[in-house]
């Protein structure tokens, strides 16, 4: 019987119970069996995975390698991989093969991990349901008629369905946490600047942050040890001494101060979701934590501010796709303007175009102050709300999403309703704070997620709280029916 968590797989490899080749074949076979129904991978790299497993086994046989050597993983198709297509789930990059590895990929390869493939996502990470992918939607392994969340929906579905023990994700407004919640797994968006953005295709540069998605908090900690760290190629990468993200996992929660924002328990929260969150709070109280109500008065403005900042930055970042140097080019352009405008019209999907247009408008002459300037002022107020709250508490807790996974197609005709599924997650990106989502129950057979937001660089505290919670509960080990 193959183990399912990174921690247990690594122990099996160290003890020689299984080889990396055995475990890699096991996952490749599961992908072949279950992924046709889920569509969680855009590209499966069977040959490369087998070669990497053989290299890992050679290292392990000599008693070498680190804690992750030989452990398989999946990469969101936003991380550049040398020689293997990186599509960002866009027609624009359907033929794009990066000439280099992203820093995250370089680090995980260096740690001896085995990449199984590249996971599906919303196009250019813009979406909350994984329905904007050029390669078709991902289905939720808990209910195939429902979305897995987004934008890291393929990574979340693959981990939930045991088609990879762990995957990378990126989070600009909730894209790690929201799909983790909807698929019943654990996901961490680190503090902005922790994980290098080099080779991670840009959406909104001041908000984008990569992080791990796994079954358990302990597995996230192991991955953070490999993924995090200063990178000279990313000018916003934070220079801090290396730290062991597993170091506080076992710490008791006695005396932990948890803040519950009144705004996150207000109207719009599904009553069953509220019950699940309350139950999780009960478990943490029984473990010795104290709870106190906190006020985040500008919480309601996080989504409008987020959509201005994210769209503005995306309109600038995506101007690089011009049909000249790489990516899609239209047939028979009449002139240079026709080449640009038609290549972009054909290469981008509807949601990406909408955001580029919103961002272009918000940055255009005469509107800059009313939209972009105003959004940046609100960003300051939202950050100050958190600073005040963290003066009295160690972590902030609330729901990750207002509801469980919704039906495919339910929100595709109404962009605004789709945006509101990120109501609890965007604030952490605007403020740059670390935040984690962990499974905390099933509602009508669908996972519910609890979000923990931490102070800057306090990921070890979030991992500690989640790990202690996972010692007392088994929601994180619940298996979806389609796996």
């Amino acid at each position, binding site marked *: 019987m193959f183990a399912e968590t990174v921690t247990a797989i690594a122990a099996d490899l160290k003890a020689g119970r299984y080889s990396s080749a055995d475990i890699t074949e096991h996952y490749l076979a599961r992908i072949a069996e279950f992924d046709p129904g889920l569509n969680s991978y855009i590209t499966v790299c069977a040959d490369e995975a087998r070669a990497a497993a053989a290299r890992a086994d050679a290292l392990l046989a000599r008693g070498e390698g680190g804690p992750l050597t030989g452990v398989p993983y999946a990469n969101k198709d936003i991380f550049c991989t040398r020689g293997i297509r990186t599509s960002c789930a866009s027609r624009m990059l359907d033929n794009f093969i990066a000439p280099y590895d992203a820093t995250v990929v370089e680090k995980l390869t260096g740690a001896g991990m085995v990449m199984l493939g590249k996971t599906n996502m919303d196009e250019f990470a813009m979406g909350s349901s994984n329905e904007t992918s050029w390669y078709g939607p991902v289905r939720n392994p808990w209910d195939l008629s429902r979305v897995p969340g987004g934008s890291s929906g393929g990574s979340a579905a693959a981990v939930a369905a045991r088609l990879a023990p762990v995957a990378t994700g990126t989070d600009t407004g909730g894209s790690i946490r929201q799909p983790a919640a909807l698929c019943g797994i654990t996901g961490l968006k680190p503090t902005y600047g922790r994980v290098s953005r080099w080779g991670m295709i840009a959406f909104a540069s001041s908000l984008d942050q990569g992080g791990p998605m796994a079954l358990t908090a302990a597995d996230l900690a192991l991955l953070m040890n490999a993924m995090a760290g200063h990178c000279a190629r990313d000018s916003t990468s*934070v220079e801090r001494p290396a730290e062991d993200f597993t170091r506080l996992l076992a710490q008791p929660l006695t005396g932990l101060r948890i803040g519950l924002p009144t705004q996150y328990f207000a109207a719009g929260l599904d009553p069953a979701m509220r019950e699940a969150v309350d139950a999780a709070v009960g478990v943490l109280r029984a473990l010795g934590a104290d709870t106190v109500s906190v006020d985040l008065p500008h919480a309601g403005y996080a989504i409008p501010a987020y*959509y201005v900042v994210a769209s503005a930055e995306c309109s600038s970042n995506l101007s690089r796709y011009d049909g000249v140097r790489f990516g899609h080019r239209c047939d028979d352009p009449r002139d*240079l303007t026709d080449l640009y405008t038609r290549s972009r*019209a054909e290469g981008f999907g509807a949601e990406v175009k909408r955001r580029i247009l919103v961002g272009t*408008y918000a940055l255009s002459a005469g509107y800059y102050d009313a939209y972009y300037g105003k959004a940046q002022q609100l960003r300051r107020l939202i950050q100050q709300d958190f600073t005040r709250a963290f003066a009295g508490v160690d972590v902030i807790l609330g729901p990750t999403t207002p509801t469980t996974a919704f039906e495919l197609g339910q929100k595709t005709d109404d962009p605004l309703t789709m945006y509101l599924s990120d109501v609890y997650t965007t604030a952490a990106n605007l403020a740059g704070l670390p935040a984690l989502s962990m499974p905390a129950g099933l509602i009508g057979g669908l996972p519910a997620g609890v979000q923990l937001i931490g102070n800057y660089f306090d990921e070890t505290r979030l991992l500690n709280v989640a790990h202690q919670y996972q010692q007392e509960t088994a929601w994180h080990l619940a298996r979806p029916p389609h796996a």
Partner: protein
Amino acid sequence: MSIGATEIEGIARLARIRIDAADVARYAGQLSQILTYIEAMNEVDTSGIEPLAHAIDAVAACRPDLVTETVDRATLQAGAPRVEEGYYLVPRVIE
């Protein structure tokens, strides 16, 4: 904020994205709805609040100006739509 067809065409021109005439009204409706929602920001008096461009206070990162990468033109241009003798080809710009 209500956005009309002329404005959509202007924004699309700035963004270098061609929008079919049949789709202009749909984009106008959706952008109007999104911008109206965004204007909820105006409920907050932000006079005197310093804009926050970036969450982490950081000074510009500097490094020694050393050559650390070698550029292999053939590899970098392997994915380009049209290349000739090391140059990217585009339609004629000057008549």
